[in-house]
């Protein structure tokens, strides 16, 4: 071992020896761990990786940053404080002592993260923990190194004065307000969140996509703070070296310069990406999952789609689409208008075509007589990237094809649809007239695929009456059969989802008894991301109701018996309605049945309790329908309600035009209520 390294290690060991056995150290750790445990207990915890890379992990690191600031300052001033500096300044040492102590500070602080890691490990599978741990440790190390360096720098420049600690603590506290000042409440300056050392404003972790939603920003963020930490250390070393050696500190200065360049480059790259995203983003009022609603009107409908999606190069997918077009009007048609995202370049077409933005106009070789069909073969491909900026200061990618994942929601225009309208994330999505849809997907090895279409094989999906289609592919996505039911979820969430499937099945069985025609054998539960794409009221997947929930509502998964969230109940009821042949547009009668089933599930059929629960439910618009159905059940039993619901399904479209009170009257009439 070289002499220099021996001194560095000795200084490191000595500082640890001074810090760790001190009574305040275990006390600090206990306090920190308790706070982290508290935060974990009140946060939504999805997976170990999400906990470490999301808010709980950031809180743990951010909280420790305060300890790092103070400990850095304390250790930097210790020698002067105990007047040992008077001796050691005359020792034949260099920067190695300072670096050894700095390193000891860092090592002493790392145990503050133990609580976060231990708590995260209890949330989900070890694979998720191992995936998140290296990044967490690295980022914690960078943040702590930065904070220690700041504390060190302050004491080196200002001396070991007590007010320096107050200054540092004040600085840390003010950084907590970043989200308030520059986040949702304040002005949005692209890239300004780089200065949010605690990352409160920039976390965009999605279990399905990891940090894809943040682009390359985490890398630049980490490099920026690593550079700053190195810069501050280099400045301290340069100052001490210059003073002690009485000559220009060339090596520390060169190191500081390199660190400065790294910092500046990382900041530039970060801000550049933030600005680029901000300029690309489409501003919307909300990105809550919209529900595909209105059906597009077009003189041409597509009877069948047969699409082979080649995502083996997910950054630039290729599509082979075979469409069967049919003239739906009364006039012959010679040109067909379809919509396809303008970034998807058509590489071949069986008929001549023209493009104008998203609109694709096809010239048919012969006019298409009313009711006649025409086959169309298109190949196309390209990269899709759509950013949406809602209330948050940073935009979110909602449509993308990247090496880390493919997200093609129903409004992405990833396959040709009739008409000239796609809808969007802030509007009700547009449905196309129902048609047969066969989708074959090729993905990189280990990737999972999710669509709203029923699966017919591992990578093939088909529906006879598809009105919209989404396609998600991610290396994290998995599909698993649990008995008759299906789970589609990020790998880390599978165990949790698996555990609650029986609850969904129980609820489904209870509801299905009112829809004998539907006869579902299980439920499909999709746990995806928190953005628009797969709507809450996604139509059933084949013969199974499809419940799509966000990764950010794990309580839906966690809840055991009793108290399923209303919208899950509503999703099941809505899908049973569709499976039984109900009109998707008949939302009022459907919602009335949903409310009846929900209240009944919770409080039973006692009229007084039912009424109380209805009122507690907010005295909803459809309450009269629920009351009428209860009255039928109390007079004629479940069989009576089944008959009424069957009639409602049969006449759903006409009922939609009635007010709930009128529908209730109709129910009492057809149900034979006394």
């Amino acid at each position, binding site marked *: 071992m070289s*002499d220099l390294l*021996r*001194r560095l290690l*000795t*200084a490191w060991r*000595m500082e640890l*020896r*001074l810090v760790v*056995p*001190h009574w305040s150290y275990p006390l600090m750790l206990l306090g920190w761990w308790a706070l982290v445990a508290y935060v974990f207990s009140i946060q939504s915890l999805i997976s170990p990786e999400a906990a470490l890379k999301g808010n709980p992990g950031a809180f743990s690191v951010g909280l420790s940053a305060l300890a790092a600031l103070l400990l850095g300052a304390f250790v930097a001033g210790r020698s002067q404080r*105990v*007047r*040992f500096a*008077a*001796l*050691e*300044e*005359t*020792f*034949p*040492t*260099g920067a190695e*002592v300072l670096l050894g102590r700095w390193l000891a500070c860092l090592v002493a602080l790392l145990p503050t993260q133990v609580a976060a890691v231990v708590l995260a490990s209890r949330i989900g599978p070890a694979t998720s923990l191992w995936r998140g741990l290296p990044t967490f440790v690295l980022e914690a190390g960078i943040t702590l190194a930065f904070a220690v360096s700041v504390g060190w720098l302050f004491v080196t420049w200002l001396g070991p004065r007590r007010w320096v600690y107050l200054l540092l603590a004040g600085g840390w506290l003010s950084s907590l307000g970043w989200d308030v000042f520059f986040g949702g409440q304040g002005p949005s300056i692209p890239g300004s969140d780089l200065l949010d050392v605690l990352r409160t404003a920039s976390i965009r972790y999605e279990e399905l996509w990891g940090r894809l939603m943040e682009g390359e920003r985490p890398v630049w963020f980490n490099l920026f703070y690593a550079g700053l930490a190195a810069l501050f250390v280099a400045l301290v070393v340069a100052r001490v070296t210059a003073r*002690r*050696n*009485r000559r220009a500190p060339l090596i520390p200065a060169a190191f500081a310069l390199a660190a400065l360049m790294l910092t500046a480059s990382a900041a530039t790259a970060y801000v550049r990406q933030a600005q680029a995203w901000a300029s690309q983003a489409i501003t919307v009022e909300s990105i809550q999952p919209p529900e595909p609603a209105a059906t597009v009107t077009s003189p041409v409908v597509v009877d069948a789609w047969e699409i082979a999606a080649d995502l083996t190069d997910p950054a630039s997918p290729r599509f082979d689409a075979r469409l069967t077009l049919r003239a739906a009007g009364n006039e012959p048609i010679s040109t067909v208008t379809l919509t396809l995202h303008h970034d998807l370049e058509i590489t071949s077409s069986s008929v001549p075509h023209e493009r104008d933005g998203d609109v694709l106009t096809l010239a048919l070789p012969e006019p298409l007589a009313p009711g006649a069909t025409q086959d169309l073969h298109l190949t196309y491909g390209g990269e899709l990237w759509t950013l949406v900026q809602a209330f948050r200061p940073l935009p979110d990618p909602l449509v993308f094809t990247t090496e880390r994942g493919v997200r093609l929601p129903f409004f992405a225009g990833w396959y040709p649809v009739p008409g000239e309208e796609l809808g969007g994330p802030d509007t009700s999505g547009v449905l196309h007239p129902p048609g047969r849809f066969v989708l074959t997907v090729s993905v990189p090895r280990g990737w999972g695929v999710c669509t709203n279409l029923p699966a017919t094989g591992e990578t093939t999906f088909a529906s006879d009456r598809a009105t919209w289609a989404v396609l998600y592919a991610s290396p994290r996505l998995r599909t698993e059969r649990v008995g008759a039911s299906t789970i589609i979820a990020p790998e880390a969430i599978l165990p949790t989802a698996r555990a609650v499937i029986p609850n969904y099945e129980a609820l489904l069985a209870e509801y299905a008894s009112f829809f004998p025609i539907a006869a579902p054998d299980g439920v499909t539960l999709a746990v995806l991301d928190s953005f628009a794409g797969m709507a809450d009221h996604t139509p059933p997947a084949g013969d199974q109701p499809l419940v799509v929930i966000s990764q950010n509502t794990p309580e839906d998964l966690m809840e055991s018996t009793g108290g399923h969230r209303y919208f899950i109940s509503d999703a099941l009821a809505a899908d049973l309605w569709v499976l039984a042949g109900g009109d998707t547009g008949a939302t009022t009668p459907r919602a009335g049945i949903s409310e009846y089933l929900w209240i009944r599930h919770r409080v039973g059929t006692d009229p007084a309790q039912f009424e109380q629960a209805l009122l507690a439910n907010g005295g909803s618009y459809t309450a009269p329908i629920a009351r009428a159905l209860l009255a039928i059940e109390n007079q004629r039993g479940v069989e009576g309600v089944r008959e009424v619901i069957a009639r409602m399904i049969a006449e759903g479209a006409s009922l939609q035009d009635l007010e709930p009170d009128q529908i209730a009257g109709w129910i009492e009439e057809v149900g034979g209520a006394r």
Partner: protein
Amino acid sequence: MEIVIEELSKHYGSVRALDGVSLRVPGGMFGLLGPNGAGKTTLMRILVTLLAPTSGRVTIGGIDVMRDPAKVRARLGYIPQEFGFYRSLNAYEMLDYIGTMKRIPPRERKRQVEAVLEEVNLTADAKRRVGTYSGGMKQRLGIAQALLGDPDLLVVDEPTAGLDPEERIRFRNLLVRISGRRTVLLSTHIVADVEASCTGLAVLRQGRLAFAGTPEELVERARGRVWLVEVEPGEWDEVASRVQVVSSRTVGGRVQLRVVADENPLGRGVPVEPGLEDGYLAVSGSAQREEWLVHV
């Protein structure tokens, strides 16, 4: 190990802590005397590379302190006026740590640590926490750390301040014992410390060198200028305002003063044999700027 100081000045704003000091210390145990604020500590701190002078040059063993401080540190042991240790460590751990910092190889370090602990009579307390040490023990530990690495030059700044008389004498003797083949530079304002141990000395006054030479030469500076004079208590103030009073005692209702003065005070003084303290007062009272080359 020879120390050569040439035209050394250190200014703090308008305050001249050192003002053109030139001095040569050829080796041995050398005392640096002067009242508080004379510039002793400033000079010491420049010698041990802690301070950069405003102007002038210092070489230690031929090494320029300003140009090559690291080399000076490698040959230096220093006991500052005020210093401390990590209180939670014991003496052995503290010295072992300092030994590493002084680049002593591991095997040699263990031997040296034990030797210096023995030297300063702290072996029995080596495993006690430094925080429990008395002032004298800490001073001895200070010497022990300074001796690590077997330095050629030992710089000791006001080492006996705060020690009780017994500890002071023990400490002084220890310094003499270890001075041996080293140069020991002892800064103090206590003349007795120098008198008992140094073969050469210099006196600083208001940042300037007032004397440099041997103790005997300093004594000679007072020869013929030291008087014993008996005065009435009422005359005390008048005498003290005209001459430097070295000491006083009351004898039979009158006050017997030992004074340094060029003329016989009140015409009734009795000349007496001068001592080092008289010499010190004789030179420190006259602040003319002088430059000496000292040959001890």
